[in-house]
């Protein structure tokens, strides 16, 4: 059962990264459209992604409220006519779906190059990362991986709630400072490239995240 849950969460992760083909995407969307848990997972992955990308993006207050309000408003406009016409998905599985899913689908459609623009994690590393990092925050060090995986959605929700209470702390907690440190060391000694002087150094000096 845990395996099944994990597989579904990996599917959400892949969906977030635009790595699913049409059929899989339709299935994943259908699940997101109908399951509160799936939406919580989807949200948690994005929070983790944001936090990994930048401390500045980690403050996720209001996201869920915003989506909830958007869903309500869209539902109020016209639930019947908005649906299929607005959904550019070829697979029809979600076409009849709820407005909330339509919103997600719409935004998802032009994402062929999704992986380009965001931190992505690869397959199983995703749930491991998400859960371990979030788990940290709650002081659950040392528990079994399977137990952590099973706890993922609940943990994600808890962090989202926690960040409302103390918006400044999770932003720091969620990143892996050791990896940041090694990334900085890689930039320092690893920039061994014939492109370094023409552009590499400028790239690093411009892009480099300062230490916290």
């Amino acid at each position, binding site marked *: 059962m845990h395996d099944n849950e994990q597989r579904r969460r990996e599917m959400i992760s892949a969906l977030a990264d635009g790595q699913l083909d049409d059929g899989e995407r339709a299935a994943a969307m259908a699940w997101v459209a109908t399951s509160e848990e799936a939406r919580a997972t989807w949200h948690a992955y994005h929070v983790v992604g944001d936090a990994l990308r930048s401390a500045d993006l980690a403050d996720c207050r209001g996201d869920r409220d915003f989506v909830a309000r958007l869903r309500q408003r869209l539902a109020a406009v016209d639930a019947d006519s908005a649906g299929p016409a607005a959904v550019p998905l070829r697979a029809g599985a979600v076409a009849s779906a709820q407005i909330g899913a339509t919103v997600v689908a719409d935004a998802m459609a032009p994402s062929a190059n999704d992986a380009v623009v965001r931190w992505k994690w690869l397959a199983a590393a995703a749930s491991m990362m998400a859960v371990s990092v979030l788990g940290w925050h709650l002081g659950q060090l040392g528990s079994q991986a399977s137990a952590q995986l099973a706890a993922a959605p609940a943990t994600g929700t808890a962090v989202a709630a926690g960040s409302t209470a103390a918006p400044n702390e999770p932003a720091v907690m969620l990143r892996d400072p050791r990896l940041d440190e090694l990334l900085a060391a*890689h930039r320092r000694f690893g920039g061994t*490239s014939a492109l370094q002087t023409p552009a590499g150094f400028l790239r690093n000096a411009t892009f480099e995240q300062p230490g916290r």
Partner: protein
Amino acid sequence: MRAATCFRTGPVLLRRAVGCFVLVLAGATTVVAQVSAPAPSATVPAGVNSTSQVAGELGISEWLARMHGASRQRTYIGTFVVTAGGNMSSAKIWHVCNGDLQMERVESLSGQPRSTFRRNDQVITFLPGSRTAVAERRESLGLFPDLLRGTDAAIGQYYSAHQRGVERVAGQEADVVQLQPKDKLRFGYRIWSEKNTGLVMKLQTLDADGRVLEQAAFSELQMDAPVSVAKLTQMMENTEGYRVDKPESTKTTPDAEGWAIRNPVPGFKSMTCHKRKSAAATDGAKPDGAMQWVFSDGLASVSLFVEAYDRRRHVVEGSMALGATHTLTRRWSDKTGDWWLTLIGEVPRSTLAAFALGLERTR
């Protein structure tokens, strides 16, 4: 080959108006690779060996020498924009040369304020927020002529250069040069090199499908602008009010540390090996002592970090990608004990995995 795909606007961006704006900026540069390469307009720079030229087209070493030469001869002020992994950063750049001396000032325009100064291979970064300055020597900055001379054959063996016409970047006409990898162990590059000087105006890193992983480009450039060496020197040396950190590491060899690569990854040569001094405060009694072994194929580099496995600290195995930079973290065990590997490089994840597989403990 697929043409570079426009940066997408996805669900993440729904809620991030600022990010959206940024990506629109970066995404405005959708590039369609031209099928036929017109005759090259660039002239071979003096003193560059042109034996690898193919029928009037510049070889990869000529292009690289030309680009490198431009940054040693031109003075300019510009705005530089980097987009990687959904993050955009920009900075104002001052660049000046005087004989063998090259100086640069990079003033961040996004994120937290910081200024970086470079005087040849000496680099200092001021972080006004924490009143600290990080001073370091970056050996890799002095390596270029050696890289080209020493591994020229290797660069040519693993990448090929193709000219893809002429485009305008930041108001300048630029030759578009594609550096195409010959295997799947490395990424490709598309470089916009200013027509007259060779200055790199824009650089894209591309995956095997031709998708843009990251991009660095001038959005605005003032060539031959007045930049004063004396003034930059004075700013660089003025550390008053700052705590100056000097990250410490000692040179070592993989052999001395008891490591070897049993199955080398084609094209990647061992460049340097350092042992990091610990940041004592964070690690308590246990020294950090991670070894950093750097490999390069002339264009891409890989850092292999090895440290003793610590059950409390080393919990998360996995891999991630930020633009072209990939990471791979995993536990490594043999009969001698348990180790924790972190690989970081501007290469596909599978290349990092090949490094991890080829590693061998020699004692």
